């Protein structure tokens, strides 16, 4: 097996150019993980150091620390390199109107959102006999 030289890596689709960078991984279930890319392979399996999950509900968000994660490639949707938009804020990655809240608060907001979604689902089911279309 031959290894791509450093100059080939930046021209190829390999994740090597993101190694040791802060990345955002979007998963198929909609979760967003952030961390430092330490390793990967051809299936997009990836090792994230200092991983945390970013939960966003409406205007609120929270980063829940997770630790060292190995992500199975089939669950990966997208891997993005995160750039700093402003130099000295720690929450540079989100629009300015978004508010950081605690883990308990975001979990509560998540639950409320989920239940509202379920309610909408059952309402629609009950109304189905009306045949809107």
């Amino acid at each position, binding site marked *: 097996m031959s290894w791509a030289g450093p100059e080939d890596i930046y*021209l*190829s*689709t390999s*994740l090597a150019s*993101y190694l040791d960078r802060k990345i*955002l991984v*979007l998963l*198929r279930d*909609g979760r*967003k993980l952030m961390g430092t890319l330490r390793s990967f392979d051809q299936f*997009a399996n990836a090792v994230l150091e200092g991983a945390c999950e*970013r939960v*966003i509900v409406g205007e609120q968000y929270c980063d829940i620390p997770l630790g060292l994660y190995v992500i199975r*490639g*089939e669950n*990966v*949707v*997208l*891997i*993005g*390199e*995160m*750039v*700093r*938009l402003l130099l000295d804020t720690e929450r*540079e*990655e*989100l*629009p300015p109107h*978004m508010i950081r809240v605690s883990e308990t608060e975001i979990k509560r907001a998540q639950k409320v959102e989920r239940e509202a979604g379920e309610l909408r689902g059952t309402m629609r089911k009950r109304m189905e006999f009306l045949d809107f279309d």
Partner: protein
Amino acid sequence: MLFFSYFKDLVGQEVTVELKNDLAIRGTLHSVDQYLNIKLENTRVVDQDKFPHMLSVRNCFIRGSVVRYVQLPPDGVDVDLLHDAARREARGA
């Protein structure tokens, strides 16, 4: 390998990649591989308000298996060339 070669020729052009989760990303095609994994540069999300977490992403890698569509520049497609290539491939040449 037809579409792999085809996408390789499109490198450097501006494309919009629509994913199966309805996220649409526009950017410059940086590279593509045999699985049709795609790397984009200078990306921006088409519906930014719906995906605020994508704000800080400028370069990204998209797994080929989650792509629904790739929208190409109108002049990026030479239909006749593609047509011929498909026939050649079908003949096994």
